[in-house]
């Protein structure tokens, strides 16, 4: 048992902090190539290393599509033996379902009754050589069944010619993506397929400054007979989606810790220097104690986020699922609490547009509501704790 970062992990974190600290303005404007140059897309990085980067990006409230690329699209691309290089994202939620990543995993696990003669990729030995890396485990699925054009409840279908049609909702960073990974129903069940993002119609939600967090844009994505390439066939898609959900969730928990830590650091700095009634406001316990409580929330959330990241690689399956859900609850709550405490500590100036706290607060809310509310996460956790 050794819950300490290695020297390499610390160096990765510190380099990221240094890189993100240089001031290039709130709009960022860092070229994507720098992310690659820094090695943040390397296949060797484990989930703990990725979580350390996510935490720093949360601290900086970076608008980079890095999380969507490595967290959402990465597992499918890697499973297909493809490099993760260009900005990428994943479409899993569709207008007529599934809605959440959990539902997408469940849909992919659903056995389908299909016609073996139907066009489409049934296993990794299908027509697409890119999928050769995917292990085949359920080769008997659908044998002797009746033809089916798509899995019930999945709002995007793979046509006989491999084209996709459907309306994806809440796709993060679709506006930045070059590669779009799509969870669509093929004749043998849910498949993960790759689409050229320039071939789809992307409509950002909340355009015109109405987005909750403009630095983490989500969009509706319209696919109308768009050509696609198979990444992960139906026999392995559920496992890859489950990994995606764990990996993306662990990284967001770490990002939320970074958001919380930044808000707390700002609040602490302000409370120590802002003077009223002849003394720094932080000398008042009514100001100081809520920040001490936040510190406790941030540190326990950090422990849980690192631990969750570790389990994603080391103890995949139920242990990791439970650890990620636990970290998500703690980190989402810590981010919201710390931002709210910081805004209150700043007083009137904390409420202004000019004071950048609201950028972190918006990100905190984005995190708190991504793919379900905190109450939804607790409900799922309760199922794991009480129902077996």
């Amino acid at each position: 048992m050794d819950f300490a970062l290695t020297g390499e992990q610390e160096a990765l974190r510190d380099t990221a902090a240094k890189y993100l600290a240089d001031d290039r303005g709130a709009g960022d404007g860092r070229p994507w190539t720098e992310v690659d140059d820094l090695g943040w897309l390397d296949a060797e990085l484990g989930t703990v290393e990725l979580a350390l980067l996510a935490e720093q990006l949360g601290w900086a409230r970076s608008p980079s599509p890095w999380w969507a690329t490595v967290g959402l699209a990465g597992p499918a691309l890697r499973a297909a033996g493809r490099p993760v290089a260009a900005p990428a994202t994943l479409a899993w939620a569709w207008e007529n379902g599934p809605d959440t990543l959990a539902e997408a995993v469940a849909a992919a696990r659903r056995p389908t009754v299909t016609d073996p003669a139907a066009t489409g990729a049934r296993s990794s030995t299908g027509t697409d050589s890119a999928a050769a890396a995917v292990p085949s485990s359920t080769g008997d699925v659908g044998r002797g069944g009746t033809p089916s054009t798509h899995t019930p409840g999945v709002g995007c279908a793979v046509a006989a010619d491999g084209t996709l049609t459907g309306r994806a909702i809440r796709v993060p960073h679709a506006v930045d993506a070059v590669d779009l990974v799509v969870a669509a129903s093929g004749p043998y069940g849910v498949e993960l397929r790759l689409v050229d993002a320039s071939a789809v119609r992307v409509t950002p939600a909340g355009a015109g400054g109405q987005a909750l967090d403009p630095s983490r844009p989500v969009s509706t994505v319209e696919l109308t007979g768009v050509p696609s390439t198979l990444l992960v066939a139906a026999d392995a898609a559920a496992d890859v989606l489950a990994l995606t959900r764990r990996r993306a969730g662990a990284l967001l928990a770490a990002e939320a810790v970074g958001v919380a830590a930044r808000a707390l650091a700002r609040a602490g700095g302000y409370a120590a220097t802002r003077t009223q009634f002849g003394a720094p406001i932080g000398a008042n316990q009514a100001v100081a104690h809520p920040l001490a409580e936040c510190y406790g929330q941030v540190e326990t959330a950090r422990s849980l986020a690192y631990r969750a990241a570790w389990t994603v690689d080391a103890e995949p399956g139920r242990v990791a699922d439970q650890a990620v859900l636990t970290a998500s609850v703690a980190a989402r709550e810590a981010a919201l609490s710390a931002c709210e405490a910081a805004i209150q500590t700043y007083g009137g100036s904390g409420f202004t547009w000019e004071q950048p706290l609201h950028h972190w607060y918006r990100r905190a809310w984005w995190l708190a509501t991504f793919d379900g509310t905190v109450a939804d996460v607790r409900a799922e956790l309760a199922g794991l704790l009480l129902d077996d």
Partner: protein
Amino acid sequence: MDLRDSAEEAEFRAGLRAWLAGAVPVTTGPDGAPPQGRWGDIEAVRSYTRALHDAGYAGLTWPAEHGGRGLSPAYQAIYLEETARAEATEHIGVIGLGMVGPTIIACGSPEQRAWYLPRILTGEIIFCQGFSEPEAGSDLSAVRTVARRDGDELVVTGRKVWSSYAHLADHCLLLARTDPGQRRHRGLSCLLVDLRSAGVTVRPIRQMTGEAEFAEIEFDEVRVPLDAVVGAVDDGWRVAMTTLAHERGTFGFTLTARLDVAFRRLVATAKARGRDTDPLVRDQIAARYVELEGLRWTNRRGLAALARTGVPGPETSVIKLRWSQAHQRLTSLAVQLLGGDAEPDGWDPYWRHQMLRSRANTIEGGTSEVLRNLVAERVLGLPRSY
């Protein structure tokens, strides 16, 4: 980072688990409810303590030359997790084992070490701590108990309160003023006092739970040999801080292990009372679990820092604060789950007792207000607020 047990740790854990399976007396009643209070049958605790010592599980982190096993705090953490998992009672001399013994090892004389340490390990002598006073609660440096020099003796007069385990203890680590000319942290000494000495009166303090696990100790001209002073005369503040630092080392594991037991009992109660399908109850149980896990993994992070730097990381400063809140919420939830049951069983008195007892958690061992002050000043760098 590797959150699994090492091969040695896994072996230790397996051995301990096997030993506990045969050594822990069954204490639950027919309805599965545990006994009230921490101690239950005191004779059973004494014999369990002897068995614990015979099996080599007393003083795990004490150096081998002082009768311990010389193991790292990681093993103490495993011990605390496994004993909690087995719902075992504690070694009867927790204060001696966890605080007074390590203080004597760090600051005591060779004679003190030779006499006290083996007896603490076996449970033959039981220590309590005499630090707090009626006028020195959170502000420990305000102690008024006086130890006046008279030849080669000290004559102790004063009153100590909130000494836990004092109803069982026969010895006390006492903080008293030896130099009346000095103020606050200076001129204090730490003394090892036999509570059977003439002039000592121990009065139990009855708590809101109805039981008395704390006591008030009155010292009326109690004569203590000068060689009972731990460390140098008038250097007691440093010695007392050594004692309290040992409370911080793996104490978080003790607290979390107890919370772990309480959480499993909460789940059992929810199921027994058919409340585990209520969405509001499920939400609350999940929230309590998140708090428990946050403590568990923060302890382990702190332990890693302790192993590398010799001091626990700053994050451990919030363990006691957050544990106390989590435990209060948990016991309140449990009592609400009991409500309205037609046929009360053993769980009803158990949870009502736990709920009342948990109110002390945000007061004992550093009030939440003092702990928040410490975090604000020492970790967040805010100005002193008092």
